[in-house]
């Protein structure tokens, strides 16, 4: 190491007490970073899907069927606008020739209802794939979200952490935006986007800190159904399998299944 290198001494001497000498307000920096982080997170979630919906004035199926069919009450903790756009919004820089045919954004239309409870998801996964599943993990940092249009559940499949989510697609960025390397801290693409049998998929295998995760997202019926399979029990450390136990093919089969939907 370089602890005793003259350059180390120089750099440390020069920066020692820097924040004090420059009268830096650490709390202000933290508040600013947190605010930017929230904005960045929100922007990624809302992203291009909602922007596209606003431009073409898409009214989702939910607007037509109204809140009664969708359950009546509001989401408990909306991270993004979950109501469909009810009025066409004029784009700030309109093209000379308006589009005559309606343009359907790839992820904007809700045309089915999510009919499963988040608490039933582990059982469904076990039944569909044949592995051994645990009950939902309810203790922090996991927890279960079981809103009508926003489900997330963590459980163990063959002893490894598995996460399944079902979210409104218009609350997420487009697949391309989600994998965009420019938005990743490491500058690497966060997976790839593919269309298989007419279904848009995001596929991402990642190894970080010795733990491998396999993520597959599918844009279906106006929702994103996602599954993440890890090779370790807590997704943090100590892998117990050579790879995530749910193969990409099985994950794709699961997230593209109709088992989540009805109506």
């Amino acid at each position, binding site marked *: 190491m370089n602890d005793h290198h003259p350059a180390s001494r120089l750099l440390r001497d020069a920066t020692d007490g820097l924040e004090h000498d420059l009268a830096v307000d650490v709390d202000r920096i933290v508040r600013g970073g947190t605010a*930017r982080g929230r904005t960045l997170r929100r922007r990624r979630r809302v992203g291009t899907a909602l922007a596209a919906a606003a431009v073409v004035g898409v009214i989702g199926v939910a607007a037509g069927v109204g809140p009664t069919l969708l359950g009546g009450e509001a989401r408990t903790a909306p991270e993004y606008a979950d109501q469909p756009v009810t009025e066409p919004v004029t784009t700030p820089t309109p093209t000379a020739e308006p589009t005559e045919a309606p343009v359907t954004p790839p992820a904007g239309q809700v045309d089915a209802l999510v009919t499963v409870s988040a608490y039933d998801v582990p059982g469904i996964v076990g039944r569909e794939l044949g592995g051994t599943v645990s009950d939902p993990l309810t203790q922090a940092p996991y927890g279960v979200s079981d809103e009508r249009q926003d489900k997330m559940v963590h459980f163990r499949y063959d002893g490894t952490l598995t996460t399944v989510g079902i979210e409104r697609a218009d609350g997420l960025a487009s697949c391309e935006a989600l994998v965009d390397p420019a938005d990743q801290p490491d500058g690497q693409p966060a997976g790839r986007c593919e269309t298989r049998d007419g279904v848009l998929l995001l596929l991402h295998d990642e190894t970080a800190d010795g733990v491998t995760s396999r993520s597959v997202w599918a844009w279906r019926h106006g929702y994103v159904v996602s599954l993440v399979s890890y090779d370790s029990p807590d997704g943090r450390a100590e892998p117990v399998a050579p790879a995530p136990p749910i193969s990409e093919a099985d994950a794709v089969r699961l997230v593209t299944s109709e088992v989540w939907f009805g109506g």
Partner: protein
Amino acid sequence: MPGHDEEYEEFARARTPVLLRSAWLLCGDAHLAEDLVQETLAKVYVRWHAAFRSPIENPVAYAQTTLTRTFLSSRRRRSSTERPTGTLPERPVDDGTDRAATRLALLAALDGLAPKDRTVLVLRYLEDLSVEETADRMGCSPGAVRSRSLRALDRIRPLLGSSFSADTERHPS
């Protein structure tokens, strides 16, 4: 989830002074350094709260890596034609107490360095990473790190005092 924001803010508050020191050396400007730290904290925040990804195993290293890569990425966007200056700074007051003069002289020396050279200097000699660790964090070869390290050290040699020689770097103990 309960406490997640509080945990993040506690971490951010504890690490901000350290991040700021690296950022100041990288940017050479206090305001740019604060901006870089904020951008870094924002990215850490997003990763910290990402529901579909495993928790960060080593948040300290993750934040430092994010800072470095954010700096290099921003510099690539701003300019790809930076050239070293041809003049070296005057040696500052050598009594070891005039920190302000040392800082000014150091910034002046670093001002002519390419962003990657500055980054190598910070990673190796402020964060105390090995050549291999630095190469891994920057996504380049150990050979490139060594060569950039020599170039960076050469720039600040006038500030290092008589104990330093090129052999110190070429043949580290």
